[in-house]
């Protein structure tokens, strides 16, 4: 089954088709929510709520578009609502946003995790989407609902802030 068929079936109320979408995208969704929320442990709740929003809104979804960028907008909205509700950030010992490519790099990875967590939400989001998902500026503009020129300047300043935090 591919996304297009699954979404068509979901529009007719097929739960198994929606299960396919959830299982396909849940890891990505929770990871993105974790990055947006700065490592807070309610990221799975945000992803769960976003999937339920998606199920209810799928009838209006244009099947010619890819699912995940559309879903990401719902996920962001849910994360923003959660961020507004609970402001405190849990202090965690383990890294929840980044993982090393090899075990030898753990010190740098912890520094990167802490620097990312201390960034503003918008800066953290754009930097992680750029580096971890490899999105180009047009894709970033679509995901973040901002013009391409804004993507460029926001990314530039977010990178500079991250550099400064890594230097400390």
């Amino acid at each position, binding site marked *: 089954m591919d996304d297009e068929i699954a979404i068509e079936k979901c529009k007719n109320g097929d*739960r198994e088709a*929606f*299960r396919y979408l*959830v*299982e396909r995208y*849940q*890891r*990505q*969704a*929770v*990871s993105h929510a*974790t*990055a947006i929320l700065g490592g807070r442990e309610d*990221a*799975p709740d945000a*992803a*769960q709520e976003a*999937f*339920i929003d998606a*199920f*209810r*809104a799928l009838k*209006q979804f244009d099947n010619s578009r890819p699912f995940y960028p*559309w879903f990401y*907008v*719902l996920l962001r*909205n849910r994360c923003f609502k959660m961020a507004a509700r609970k402001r405190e950030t849990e202090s965690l010992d383990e*890294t*929840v*946003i*980044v*993982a*090393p*490519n*090899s075990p030898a*790099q*753990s*010190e*740098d*990875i912890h*520094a*990167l995790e802490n620097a990312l967590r201390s960034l503003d939400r918008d800066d953290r989001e754009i930097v*992680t989407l*750029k*580096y*971890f998902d490899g999105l*180009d*500026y047009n894709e970033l503009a679509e995901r973040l*609902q901002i013009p391409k020129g804004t993507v*460029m*300047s926001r990314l*530039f300043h977010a*990178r*500079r802030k*991250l*550099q*400064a935090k*890594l*230097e*400390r």
Partner: protein
Amino acid sequence: MPGGSYKRSLKGSLHMKDSNCENVLLSIMAAADGESAQLSPEEIKAHLSACADCREEMVRMQQLDSVFQQATRRESTIDLWPAINGRLDQRPATMNWQPYAVVSILLVVYKLIEMLPEAAPGWAINLVPLIIFGALLVFLRENPFRINSELALEK
């Protein structure tokens, strides 16, 4: 990169001399990201040859890129489906506004009737479009005061 080497190699404050430097650095970043840059490679090269601060900044950008090359996004292993499946039948919590609309219209009609003997009929007639509009909203089941949280999706 060994642990802590990034920190050591980036000592010194970040600079931003003027808008020209910012344009150059934006162009360097865009080019490194594979995007179209505002300035040509020749313009960037000419600026870099004369600006030590921007050369330093460019090295910093490259070092940040190399830090991210060692990292990846941590993926969750959580299974959301059982919780989601249990909630799909629940109706979304929305404010039931119809009773308020009906009560409001009845109050307006009552007030209108109450005032009819005292005022000229022409004044009361002014309220008729409002009543019709309210009744239309009830008929169409449309709440004009609803905040649409999905506006972004309708683009």
